[in-house]
């Protein structure tokens, strides 16, 4: 018994470190405290953001994807938060950062970062998703894993000042109904936001997962627009102008509008609707060599509130079981779901998840979504996603008849 076990271990690791031997790291001191005054991850960890070269001409106006298959829980490590820039990442000097608020206000004001940090603050755990997440799948399955089908998605604890606290400083003219938010990057990104949302739950965030917002996410200050498409979460925010109508800028006409089969496009489609995806098993986390118990796990989210239920099917949507939702289930935040399953070598399976939110919205099938919107709307694809498990345990991105 012992010898056989030894041989098995040797196949998997260095026997010198395995029982009954004392591993080398138990026989010598490692580095002490503040070896890293600001720490990094283990050199053995390799999860990375990835980009897709054929999607964009360059990397300045481009996107990189969160490796969702490697994530645990609901918090996205900031180092792996997906990126979406239109002119690269500006190196904003915090002492030179200013926020200007003007237009239909009583008192046009500017704020330093220090000013912002003195105002009343809130912290909220919210997902952010690019509305083009999964956009490559409208016509059919073409990406190799969950990093690319759903990886323009992250969730952080954001801390900052409610936008309404800033609008209290400037006052509002009675006819103010929309605002323009403008970034300070090379694209001076702009989006129009209805005032009702601004007064509801929008935050000017300087904190992300306990520390300063990362440069790729808008350092020093970005908008957090809970539940709404990532593009309106203006990064490197520099200006807010109040107005009495939307601006119809390039990013809310040419982009981020949803083209329907009749050639007309829907505008102001802000909300990321109820959605979910299984993050394990998935193409990056196949079942090869692991027959038996499988914990199916994934993420669900909705831009209008809490997730109330996630159903999982292993037979392509014929039968469903409701998964367990990890508490705390927070509004407009990722929700982790888990459900046990048995898989045997030689078994083919079609894994799907279907989320529901507190407003009763249910994730549609790809067929239903196509029936409603065709295949050219790019944005807001929230269809039920299918992973094919092959008899050998390989997991494949496929689409099926429903």
């Amino acid at each position, binding site marked *: 018994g012992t010898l056989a076990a030894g041989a098995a271990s040797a196949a998997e690791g260095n026997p010198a470190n395995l029982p009954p031997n004392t591993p080398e790291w138990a026989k010598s001191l490692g580095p002490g405290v503040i070896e890293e005054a600001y720490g990094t991850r283990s050199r053995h960890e390799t999860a990375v953001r990835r980009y897709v*070269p054929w999607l964009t*001409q360059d990397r300045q106006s481009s996107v990189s994807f969160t490796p969702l298959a490697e994530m645990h829980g609901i918090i996205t490590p900031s180092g792996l938060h997906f990126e979406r820039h239109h002119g690269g990442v500006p190196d904003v000097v915090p002492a030179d950062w200013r926020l*200007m*608020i003007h237009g239909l206000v009583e008192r046009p004001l500017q704020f330093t970062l220090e000013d912002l940090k003195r105002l009343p603050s809130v912290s909220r755990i919210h997902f952010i998703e690019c509305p083009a997440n999964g956009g490559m799948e409208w016509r*059919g399955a073409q990406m190799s894993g969950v990093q690319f089908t759903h990886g323009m998605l992250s969730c952080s604890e954001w801390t900052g000042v409610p936008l309404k606290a800033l609008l*209290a400083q400037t006052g509002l003219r009675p006819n103010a109904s929309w605002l323009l938010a403008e970034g300070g990057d090379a694209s001076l990104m702009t989006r129009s936001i209805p005032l009702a949302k601004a007064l509801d739950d929008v935050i000017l965030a300087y904190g992300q997962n306990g520390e300063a917002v990362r440069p790729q996410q808008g350092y020093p200050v970005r908008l957090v627009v809970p539940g709404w498409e990532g593009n309106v979460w203006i990064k490197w925010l520099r200006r807010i102008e109040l107005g009495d109508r939307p601006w119809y800028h390039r990013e809310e006409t040419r982009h981020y509008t949803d*083209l329907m089969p009749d050639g007309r496009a829907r505008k*102001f489609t802000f909300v990321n609707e109820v959605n979910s995806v299984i993050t394990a098993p998935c193409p990056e986390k196949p079942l090869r060599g692991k027959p038996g118990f499988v914990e199916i796990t994934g993420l669900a989210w909705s831009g209008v509130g809490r997730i109330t239920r996630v159903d999982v099917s292993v037979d392509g949507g014929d039968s469903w079981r409701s998964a367990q939702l990890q508490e705390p289930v927070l509004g407009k935040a990722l929700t982790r779901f888990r459900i046990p399953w048995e898989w045997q070598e030689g078994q083919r399976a079609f894994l799907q998840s279907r989320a529901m939110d507190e407003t009763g919205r249910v994730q549609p099938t790809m067929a239903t*979504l196509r029936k409603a919107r065709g295949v050219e709307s790019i944005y807001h694809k929230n269809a039920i996603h299918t992973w094919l498990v092959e008899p050998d345990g390989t997991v494949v991105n*496929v689409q099926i008849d429903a």
Partner: protein
Amino acid sequence: QPGGDRAALYRPFPLPQGGGAAGPFAAWPAPPGAAEALPRPIAGIGRPASPQEIAGWDIDVRGDGEGLPPGRGTVKDGEELFVQQCAACHGDFGEGLERWPALIGGRGSLNTDQPRRTIGSYWPYAPPVFDYIRRAMPYATPMTLSNEEVYALTAYVLHLNELLPEDAELDAEKLKAIRMPNREGFVLEARPDTPDEACMSGCRQGRPVTVTMDSRQFVQPGSDSGFSEPQ
């Protein structure tokens, strides 16, 4: 509103009086209760922004042309500037090189299965062309052109799209007057637009599962679709 209360979650804004009929540039009403939604202001935090300070940053041009600066520029001047500063990416005629975006074409394509969204085919209003060029172009050195130059470039780009004659000169009033081909091409958000069905068993009613699309025709399962090093 169609869809009732739930639709309001997707369209949290009161529409202009008369809705779409009021035209795209009517004022939109303030949301009810805006003033009361504000907390009390806090003394001593924030500094007045002077008109001059605002002027430097208040560069936006609205869809209706509000915000357009004084100045003018000709298609002809625009052509020269375009060749020097823009054509390397967008092509001499705005046709788009490699995968840099095209600024022309696609008209009539929007309801086909190969829609092409360009200024000529998709942008609903002309003034934002000025706005976008000024704030974001040339791509690597934005905010370096004068307003005159931006007018000229806007004129040339609109000319390439057959929206201005070759000898035209553009200023704020003329830019506002241009009627873009896709001006009527936008409708409001219409979600929720799918049913809320959650069948639990026998949902396929005996139909076997058919794979309609398999990503392996493009890529192997794993991380083949992308890279963590520049390609």
